[in-house]
């Protein structure tokens, strides 16, 4: 058994040396397609991140009735806080609101003309699940005993939500398509290298080798191609992403890119895993098809 394993390993390595240029080419192809796959993953991770970030900025402004007193405010606050949809809550008194309004529109000499603060007390509400953002805002406006009015930057909120979904869906579709594409390219490449050695495989069959015996070195070879290809692509992708991320942060500091090492590590693991999996499975399928005989 150990005997066999040693043999399979040396067979795999020697097979790769013999096929020389072919293996170099297929490693290159695997590297490149995993690179594209990785870029797509990183882009989609970043888009999701960005969309999340934008969505997290969405707030519902709940204006309270003037009739609502201090104690009622704190009761209402507790009630809001108890709602599962509420992530964050912030009370804005009418004075603060007016100050904010004035600073937001500095060019209008409102202060000079408006002597009485027109704004009511309000809550800024941030929701947990932004997909329910609009419906939740509508629900809040129905609590008539406290609520005078609810604003949520109607159109903008809906648009950001939709854009978010748009990004997410496109991301899913693209990553899905790209996974399939990578799968096909890697498997096809490995199949081509196996088909080129079809004659060799047939001879092995003639000399009494069982199918698993023939398959083993090819599986190892596919595995190694996957390992080398994915390590190379991660080796290219990691520094490239770090560099570009830093560059972009300089240029567009407000766009929140993903720097989180944990997330990035997941991405790199995904690439490596995909490479190894596709290499090995590709080899398996390729050899199995070639091994199909007429007996």
């Amino acid at each position, binding site marked *: 058994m150990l005997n066999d394993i040693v043999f399979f390993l040396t067979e795999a390595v020697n097979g790769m040396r013999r096929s020389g240029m072919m293996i170099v080419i297929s490693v290159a192809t695997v590297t490149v397609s995993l690179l594209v796959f990785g870029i797509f993953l990183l882009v989609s991770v970043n888009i999701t991140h960005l969309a999340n970030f934008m969505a997290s900025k969405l707030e519902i402004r709940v204006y309270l009735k003037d009739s609502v007193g201090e104690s009622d405010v704190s009761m209402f606050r507790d009630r809001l806080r108890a709602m599962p949809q509420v992530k964050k809550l912030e009370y804005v008194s009418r004075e603060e609101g007016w100050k904010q309004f004035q600073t937001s529109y500095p060019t209008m000499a409102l202060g000079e003309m408006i002597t009485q603060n027109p704004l009511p007390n309000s809550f800024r509400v941030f929701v947990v699940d932004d997909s329910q953002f609009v419906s939740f805002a509508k629900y809040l406006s129905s609590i008539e005993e406290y609520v005078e009015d609810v604003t949520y930057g109607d159109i903008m909120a809906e648009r950001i939500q939709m854009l978010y979904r748009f990004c997410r869906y496109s991301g899913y579709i693209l990553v899905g398509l790209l996974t399939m594409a990578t799968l096909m390219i890697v498997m096809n490449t490995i199949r081509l290298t196996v088909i080129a050695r079809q004659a060799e495989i047939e*001879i092995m069959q003639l000399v009494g*080798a069982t199918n698993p015996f023939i398959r083993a070195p090819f599986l190892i070879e596919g595995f190694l191609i996957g390992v080398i290809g994915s390590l190379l692509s991660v080796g290219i992708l990691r520094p490239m992403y770090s560099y570009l991320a830093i560059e972009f942060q300089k240029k567009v500091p407000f766009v929140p890119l993903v720097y989180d090492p944990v997330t990035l590590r997941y991405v790199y693991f995904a690439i490596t895993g995909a490479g190894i999996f596709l290499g090995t499975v590709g080899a398996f399928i390729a050899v199995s098809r070639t091994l199909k005989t007429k*007996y």
Partner: protein
Amino acid sequence: MIRIKKLVKKYPNGFLALDNIDLHVGKGEFIYLVGPSGAGKSTLLDVIFRSELPTSGDIYIDNFSLNHLKPAQVPYYRRNIGMIFQDYKLLPGRTVYDNVAFALRVMHYPRSRIHRHVSQVLELVGLSEKVNHVTAELSGGEQQRICIARAIVNNPPILLADEPTGSLDPETSWEIMQLLSKINSRQTTVLVATHNKSIVDDIRKRVVVLESGKIVRDKHFGTYDG
């Protein structure tokens, strides 16, 4: 040992290569299979070796019908047969040693035994010096002898030789045939398809003559021409 009954082989392109062959080969027998180019000699050996499937008819090996052979059993079946291929069928890019050793590796021989057997058999065919050469670096006759070495290295009970001296000079041919005779004398059943008239005439054995896929003559202690 080998009983062939009403064997017909029609290739996919419609060519009838074996036409109702009946042949009985006893254990330890030595048979020359002769006949003109395209007579069906290789096809007959291929069908016995199961690298071609018969169209109809039966082949029994020790009373076991090959019709009952499952695909997964084919490799194990073949290990009982040493086949010297007309076109050598050496594994490309490998050394002489690896080519011969491969037949033992598939049978999970330990390294040391592989080494001993391969060295012995390469000595027998006169290729000890070329043991680490890649097969592409060898002359035609040297390649043919590797194929012979591989076929006999695991002492199979049946040896099928398809034109085993086609690329060999008369002297080497003679030595190889002596080797096959010696193997035969140890109860190995040997079938040799050959065009080598002088060998058939000099080392007298049973001669089966094929023509257009039919056995036209079958003579013990025969010669090439009759």
